[in-house]
């Protein structure tokens, strides 16, 4: 049995060898983020800048490709007693961790901080990260849904470019004129508009029409689409089945909307700020952004991620030091220059780092102009499940010609249990 002894020895030596070499003088913290390689590089640049800025704390990035991977890892590590010190998470997803007491409130740290103040941030991005009246996480961005458009296609079709405060009807009319079938095979080669049939895409139009998504925004007990909400939802569904200005299900599956826009075969695309670095590679045509069209009152939906500190972190002071840097002017400037975020810090959002006139989109100011009209979807612990359920029904109705009234009733029924289990 000498063989087994050798095996055990090999493992022990490896365990000791691989774990050796850490410097006890430096406090080490771990930061989990999720994103594509370019996004991760932007986070890495901030982490490296932080590590260079001082010698006491060594921050290490733990990057994941997708949000689901990060959530799986985070949930396991919290349950297993070894959570990261910090992680970056959208306001729609952090509730499940706040509800089980896995987060350290950053409010007290913020109040004692000499480097950061809550007044420095856009309030719109701060509020969704409040839990039980306390600031739980600190936002790094205040993005929103906007309309990206191919200016060359507008010019070719002789259609006026989107103007500030344009209406839904104007958008549909423009999309209709941009939609064209060049080869006469009955299938449009260029579509006027692309939008994913998801609850976060439909919500701003519900609000713009004076409607509501849920019965009580502060403590929702279920979806409660009223008459204006149903009207807005129906107009959204009509884009595909009545107006015919958006790609069919099969076409969207064959070529995603982002690719279709890159290929110059989509007049407009509703998306958040995240596509800007990819769109900056476009050389074949001129593109820009416009605010969302409205049904009357302007509205858009908040897209915001925040750094959250875990309650199980052994290095909360070091973690806060990191947050002060990454959410302060220097950190936000580095992140903003990567192009993907709309900074949550007013001073950086209004600076050249974000509004660089030499960088596309030319009208980056649109993102800032929308901030006063941004609203957040409900922040409850079961929102990820609710969103999954809702998106399934919305996709079916959007591509299959469903009626908004029936979908509204179905959504309220199918998500009742998920709302009932929700904590806020």
């Amino acid at each position, binding site marked *: 049995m000498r063989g087994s002894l050798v095996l055990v020895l090999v*493992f022990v030596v490896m365990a000791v060898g691989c774990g050796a070499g850490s410097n006890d003088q430096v406090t080490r913290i771990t930061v989990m983020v999720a994103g594509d390689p370019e996004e991760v590089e932007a986070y890495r640049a901030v982490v490296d800048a932080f590590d260079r800025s001082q010698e006491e704390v060594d921050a290490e990035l733990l*990057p994941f*490709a997708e949000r689901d991977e990060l959530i799986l890892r985070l949930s396991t590590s919290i349950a297993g007693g*070894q959570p990261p010190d910090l992680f970056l998470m959208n306001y729609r997803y952090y509730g499940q961790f706040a509800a089980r007491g896995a987060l350290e409130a950053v409010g007290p740290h913020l109040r004692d901080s000499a480097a950061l103040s809550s007044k420095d941030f856009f309030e719109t991005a701060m509020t969704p990260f409040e839990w039980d009246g306390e600031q739980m996480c600190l936002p790094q961005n205040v993005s929103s849904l906007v309309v990206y458009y191919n200016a060359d296609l507008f010019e070719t079709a002789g259609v006026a470019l989107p103007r500030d405060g344009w209406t839904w009807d104007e958008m549909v009319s423009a999309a209709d004129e941009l939609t064209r079938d060049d080869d006469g095979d009955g299938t449009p080669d260029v579509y006027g508009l692309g939008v994913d049939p998801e609850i976060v895409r439909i919500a701003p139009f519900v609000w713009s029409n004076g409607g509501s998504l849920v019965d009580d925004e502060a403590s929702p007990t279920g979806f409660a689409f009223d008459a204006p909400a149903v009207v807005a939802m129906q107009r959204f569904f009509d884009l595909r089945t009545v107006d015919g200005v958006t790609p069919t299900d099969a076409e969207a599956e064959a070529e995603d909307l982002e*690719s279709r826009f890159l290929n110059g075969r989509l007049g407009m695309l509703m998306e958040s700020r995240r596509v800007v670095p990819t769109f900056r*590679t476009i050389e074949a045509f001129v593109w820009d952004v416009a605010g969302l069209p409205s049904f009357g009152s302007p509205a858009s939906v908040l897209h915001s991620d925040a750094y959250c500190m875990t309650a199980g972190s052994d290095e909360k002071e070091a973690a806060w030091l990191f947050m002060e840097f990454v959410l302060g002017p220097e950190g936000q400037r580095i992140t903003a220059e990567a192009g993907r975020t709309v900074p949550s810090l007013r001073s950086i959002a209004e600076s050249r780092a974000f509004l660089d006139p030499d960088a596309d989109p030319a009208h980056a100011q649109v993102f800032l102009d929308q901030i006063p009209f941004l609203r957040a979807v409900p922040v409850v612990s079961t929102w990820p499940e609710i969103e999954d359920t809702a998106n399934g029904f919305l996709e079916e109705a959007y591509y299959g010609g469903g009626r908004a009234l029936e979908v509204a009733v179905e959504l309220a029924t199918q998500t009742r249990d998920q709302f009932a289990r929700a904590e806020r």
Partner: protein
Amino acid sequence: MGTLLRMGTPAIRERWAPGFLQIVLSVLVLAVFSAPLMLAFLGSLRPTGTSPPTSIDLYPDGADLSNYGEVLGQSSIRRQSLNSLFVAVVSVPIGTLVASWAGFAIARLPRRAAMFLLGLAVVAAMIPVTALFVGRLVLFRLSGLTDTPVPLMAPALIGVSPLLVLLFAWSYFTIPREIYDLAREAGLGPFRTWWHVAMPLRMDVAGVAAAVAFMISWGNLIDPLLYVYDERWFTLPLGLASLVELPPTDQGLMLAAAVFAIAPVLVTAFVAQRFVYARRW
């Protein structure tokens, strides 16, 4: 020992001569299963930064191998590949050895005890992997191993997978009892019987098991995702996963990385099939 070996081997090895139908079916199966790989390879030839195709495009305009250069030029991919290789080099021999020992032990136990252990292995194989996430993490955390690659190799200590243990047990069951009796009469203990008799007679099974162990280790995404806290020890599946999120203009790069990651598996499968056809099953 020579006599024992000869007794366990078929005296006359029949040569396997495939018929026409078998060849046609084999080609069809090969075509179906190799199509994704071929598409991945052709897609990998599309230079980075070019717009994605609007229809099926078998041979991209401007096709070249530049994506492979870029993939191999990325220090993170190189490091992750070496990590994956290191993990496989350590865990495959250990895992195969442990599974072989466990299978041999089961095969040599009295029938009732062997059946009980086989049942246990089947139950173990049926346990959802998600049920073990937290327990394993706690184990690794308490052992102070989460900053090391050891969690990625640890499954080797239990034979990688219950399926490998079952495979070995089944193969050792098929060795005639008389051979074991002869070995006992020759004064061989359990370990020497395994080493001099059972293992040489079932080297083909060991080869296949090692290949399966390699594929499990090489393609393991969940363990590094959950148990490795030091990015320097991230393995290739995590690197590949990060490339999946590349924008549509860079799909060629992701596909080149995928082909690069699949290549060792193909080589392993090729080597393993030599073991499969080394004797009639």
